């Protein structure tokens, strides 16, 4: 039985005040979290977060060998010193740097009106700090890895 009161009803816009025309933007303007540069930092944040999580699982497991014997622990931690793993550690620190700096940017944007307003600037500051981090870490680490 049709009930008048539950029929499809949408408040009809008054003719006097037409709804603003919706224009398809030429490029995705995005939101604070997604779109343009913000979207790519979100994608990177997610990929690095998941990757670091899996590294952490392995890293806790290798540390449990401390409880097995000095020989067992040294054998496994020794593999962290070979050149291929040394390059892997560069990737790991770079990924942690991306996740940490972008995480701090997200926090500043979420809690601070100024951060919300200047989130693009914060992104460039993050990139600068990331490059500084790598300049500080990579040469020193590679010297350690490749020198005997």
């Amino acid at each position, binding site marked *: 039985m*049709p009930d008048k009161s539950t029929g499809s009803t949408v408040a009809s816009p008054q003719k006097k005040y037409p709804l603003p025309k919706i224009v398809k933007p030429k490029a995705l303007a995005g939101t604070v979290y997604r779109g343009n540069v913000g979207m790519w930092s979100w994608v990177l944040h997610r990929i690095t977060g998941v990757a670091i*999580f899996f590294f952490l699982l392995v890293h806790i497991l290798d540390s449990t060998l*401390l409880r097995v014997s000095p020989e067992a622990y040294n054998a496994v*931690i020794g593999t962290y010193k070979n050149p291929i793993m040394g390059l892997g550690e560069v990737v790991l620190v770079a990924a942690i740097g991306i996740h940490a700096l972008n995480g*701090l940017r997200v926090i500043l944007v979420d809690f601070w009106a100024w951060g919300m307003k200047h989130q693009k600037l914060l992104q460039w500051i993050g990139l600068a700090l990331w490059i500084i981090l790598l300049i500080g870490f990579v040469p020193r680490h590679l010297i350690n890895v490749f020198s005997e």
Partner: protein
Amino acid sequence: MTVTIDSPRASTTKHHKGINLEKWGWVFMRASGVLLVVLIFGHLFVNLMIGHGVKALDFAFVGGKFSDPFWQVWDMLLLWFALIHGANGMRTVINDYAHNRLVGVVLKSFILLATIVLLTLGTLVIYTFDPCPAGSPADLLPSFCAGV
């Protein structure tokens, strides 16, 4: 078929009783993120930058660190905050992509199980660690073991 469309201006806020766990998860991700910046970069600096970096890592090095309660507490905080932050982040990622309910539940159970097992193992390692296990070659142990 009749369809009811809420008035566009209707309040969508539902007032739930009790605590909002998702909200506290959101707050936890940010609070733990700030703490993790200090814990992780301190960890990386001491293990990879000081002295010979990765080349110096072995049982004796870790034994020296864990004989100091400061580093025991540091690594304990790192273990708990990084794992719980990472696991909760993985929960978000799984919720976003696992459109099949069963797949989602299975994946999240796996994350939960791995987290509980590794928190237990990691905590036991830090608090039951013996830097001078009897019968091990002295050259693999921290130097202070010689006096014991």
